[in-house]
């Protein structure tokens, strides 16, 4: 059962090949048996899962089954879950139990999905290796000496190790697509505003976007159908008509114009990774697409701009964690300043503190114009690059990450090397565009990903292209070793 896709599970449940209780029990048993190898779950919600599975079976029996009825999924521990600890990978929220559900969590609950648990992540989604979690690093199921990517490393490892059929995740600078690349999965970051941010603990509000991590493009489409919604509780949510993302999956790619940015194949891209990506793009040519080299001239400015804007926003977003109302509070504070200093000093990890400091600095009097304002100007230029490119092409393709998964510790002592890990993914967050990473081969027995970037709200077209690729290739069917 754990090798079936979401599409197959929905069919199996409706055909009564197995019940949701059986399916859920099977996954819970696998998690109990195998997750000590990967550390992908922070909290397993066994009781909730079994109760939801039982209820799903009743609805399935009555023929009153919503879209994902009885399908187990995992939630990244950044999404608030009513009555269930939501840690965001931080000591700061180790004791935090929200009294509300994130809209994303609510959407899946209403669609009948079963919550297996809350999965691991970099602390407050800050990281590209899942090494910054308070709950310890997550291991890549393809090679447990290597990182799974981040920040949605727990989501990716859980799906890659078949400890969940799919997981929710979030992407601020590549946190869905880079782990998808490193773990051999399909990972979709929707257009900014497509998925509600209500109840999704903020890292950088103008960049954060929820999306699914799945094994196939078809599953990503099914997951997005439930995840996407217009939500009046999120002022940045876009009131765009909802569509059925599975409807166009089988459209022909004849005449699809694919742009390949030359800046995405320069120095820094590991050679074999580049070859796999080029080979995959060639595959689209066979499917009838036209390939064209394009230029995104401000690509090299995206990492510097991002590492001003994201820390600036996070420096304010994380101010609420002050030890006053909820979360970690230091022992015996002597006075107010002591309460603040020690609660935050002890509650946050190194990377989070680094970004708060960087962000506070960039916003300080006398530095604002040089850093924050300049970064926002660069952001507009980067967006304009894409606007110009999409006048000529329908989809942009290139690598998701510079290389396959790296070993633990390889970049954790060098923040800049770690930041460059997201060099191909960050620009789409700055522009607000959708992007998807799909597996396109192995390098040293580790997966690498092909990134597809689409125009605003072109998730359907991206998933169509990804699905068609997966109809003629089997990279996405490769699984990590020893997962049984």
């Amino acid at each position, binding site marked *: 059962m754990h090798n079936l896709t979401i599409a197959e599970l929905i069919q199996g449940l409706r055909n009564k090949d197995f019940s949701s209780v059986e399916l859920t029990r099977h996954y819970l048993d696998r998690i109990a048996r195998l997750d000590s190898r990967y550390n992908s779950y922070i909290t397993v919600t066994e009781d909730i899962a079994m109760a939801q599975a039982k209820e799903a079976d009743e609805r399935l029996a009555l023929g009153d089954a919503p879209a994902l009825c009885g399908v187990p999924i995992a939630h990244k521990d950044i999404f608030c879950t009513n009555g269930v600890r939501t840690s965001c990978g931080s000591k700061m929220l180790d004791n935090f139990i929200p*009294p509300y559900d994130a809209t994303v969590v609510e959407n899946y609950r209403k669609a009948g999905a079963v919550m297996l648990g809350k999965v691991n992540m970099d602390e407050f989604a800050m990281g590209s290796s899942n090494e910054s979690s308070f709950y310890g690093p997550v291991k890549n199921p393809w090679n447990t000496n290597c990182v799974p990517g981040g920040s949605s490393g727990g989501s990716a490892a859980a799906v890659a190790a078949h400890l969940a059929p799919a997981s929710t995740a979030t992407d601020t600078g590549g946190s869905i697509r880079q782990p998808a690349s490193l773990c051999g999965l399909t990972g979709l970051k929707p257009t900014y505003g497509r998925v509600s941010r209500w109840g999704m603990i903020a890292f950088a509000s103008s960049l954060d976007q929820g999306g699914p991590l799945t094994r196939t493009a078809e599953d990503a489409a099914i997951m997005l159908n439930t995840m996407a919604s217009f939500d009046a*509780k999120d002022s940045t949510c876009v009131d765009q008509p909802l569509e059925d993302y599975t409807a166009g999956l089988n459209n022909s790619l004849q005449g699809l114009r694919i742009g390949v940015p030359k800046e995405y194949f320069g120095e820094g891209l590991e050679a074999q990774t580049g070859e796999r990506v080029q080979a995959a793009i060639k595959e689209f040519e066979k499917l009838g697409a036209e390939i064209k080299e394009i230029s995104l001239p401000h690509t090299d400015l995206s990492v510097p701009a991002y590492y001003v804007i994201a820390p600036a926003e996070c420096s*304010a977003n994380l*101010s*609420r964690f002050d030890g006053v*109302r909820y979360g970690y509070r230091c022992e015996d504070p002597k006075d107010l300043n002591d309460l603040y200093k020690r609660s935050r000093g002890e509650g946050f990890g190194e990377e989070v503190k680094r970004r708060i400091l960087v962000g506070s600095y960039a916003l300080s*009097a006398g530095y604002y114009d040089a850093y924050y304002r300049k970064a926002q100007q660069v952001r507009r230029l980067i967006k304009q690059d894409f606007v110009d490119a999409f006048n000529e092409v329908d989809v942009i393709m290139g690598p998701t990450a510079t290389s396959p998964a790296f070993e633990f510790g390889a970049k954790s002592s060098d923040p800049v090397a770690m930041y460059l890990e997201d060099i191909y993914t960050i620009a789409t967050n700055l522009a607000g565009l959708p992007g998807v990473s799909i597996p396109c081969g192995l390098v040293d027995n580790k997966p690498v990903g092909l990134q597809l970037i689409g125009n605003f709200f072109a998730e359907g077209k991206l998933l169509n292209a990804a699905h068609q690729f997966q109809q003629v290739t089997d990279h996405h069917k490769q699984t990590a070793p020893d997962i049984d």
Partner: protein
Amino acid sequence: MEWETVIGLEVHVQLATTTKIFSGASTAFGAEPNTQACAIDLAMPGTLPVPNEQAFRYAVMFGLAIDAEIGKRSVFERKNYFYPDLPKGYQTTQLESPIVGPGHVEIQLADGSTKSIRIHHAHLEEDAGKSLHEDFHGMSGIDLNRAGTPLIEIVSEPDMRSAEEAVAFARKLHSIVTSLGICDGEMSQGSMRFDVNISVRPKGTEEFGTRTETKNLNSFKFMEDCIALEVERQIDLIEDGGSVIQETRLYNGDTKVARSMRSKEEANDYRYFPCPDLLPVEIDDEFIEAVRQTLPELPDARQQRFVEQYKLSEYDAGILAADSATAHYFESTTEKCGDAKLAANWVMGEVSAHLNAEEKDITSSPVNTDMLAGLIARIKDNTISNKIAKQVFEDMWQGEGDADAIIEAKGLKQMSDTGELEKIVDEVIAANQAMLEDWLASEPDKRKKKMGGFMGPIMKATKGQANPGLVNQILAKKLNSML
């Protein structure tokens, strides 16, 4: 040396919306602590703000009332600082693109002159919660009921030159926002709070002196006292060879003592930046015009109407038109009694004095407009004198019924029976032979004044109920006939 005072005001006005600026929690005053703070107000993780349209409507109403340009694209920013009653660690406010641009407010001074005070801008923002320092045994309690209450902060130019002007400006703003119905004006509940920027300079110079800012004054009286104190402090400092340092000060209105809170060096770097959770709010002409259509009559227009319609003086009209409740009370009384002049005198006189003495609002006056009009009608038809009317008013205030009932019950009806009055006048003259001799012997031009001597005994004999005009006529006729 002669000194000139320069004053600018920053005024926080709580908007009378039913819910908060970014959440659906109630804004009602006086609830149990933390019962009106929802997850958004508590800044729980993952919660997001959604702007309250009513707050924008109110801010636009204010902008139109002061003849200001409305910001078509208004942007919220985060003002970052740590304080326990500021749950998010930042206040959501506006800086570069406020909703209300430059405008002006006209003030009237006691000498009858008027002056225009420029408004730099007004912006929308959220209020913080409250820290409670009592009853927590060495710790502080936090009440977040107020957190997220919508405010407009009105920032004036440094156009005021005296405490009198500053208070007149503050009163005018109070009058505008209450007339618009966008603020309940309850100063004691913090609905309007004033920060006063004060500096002094040698009279005739252009350059501003170093200013201090005294925060959070919530009464006109405190503001007046505080300005006097601070101006004196600054002048003394400079005349003693010292200099004023830029600082934030606090003033305790009860003890009349001010102290320094923090100097410029200790001031926070607020690290403002646009709030990424809120998109810029676009306000189009259609919205602005729709709001304009709903604007009630403003104090200045009402004052002019009172001058023209009721023939009141500018000054009287200004007082009666200042707030809509008083204006309504006056107009309603006038309509019922048909005499604007008398109605104005009574509202500004007895009604106002009684309200002030008991710190009551005119809407809760024990004497309603029907009762006051009834009283005025009895003055006009000579049933009672002005003097008796004051006594009747006092009885009405104490809840003894309407004017007619009190006049009847206490037998206060004025004596206007000529025959009876003539009899009493004759008796009084007869009983006061010495006074009569004196009157008859006095110079012709003194006689009128001396005639007043008979009034006391006559009034005493009639228990004050004699119609004074009538008595005068009869008395003059009788005395003159004896010459």
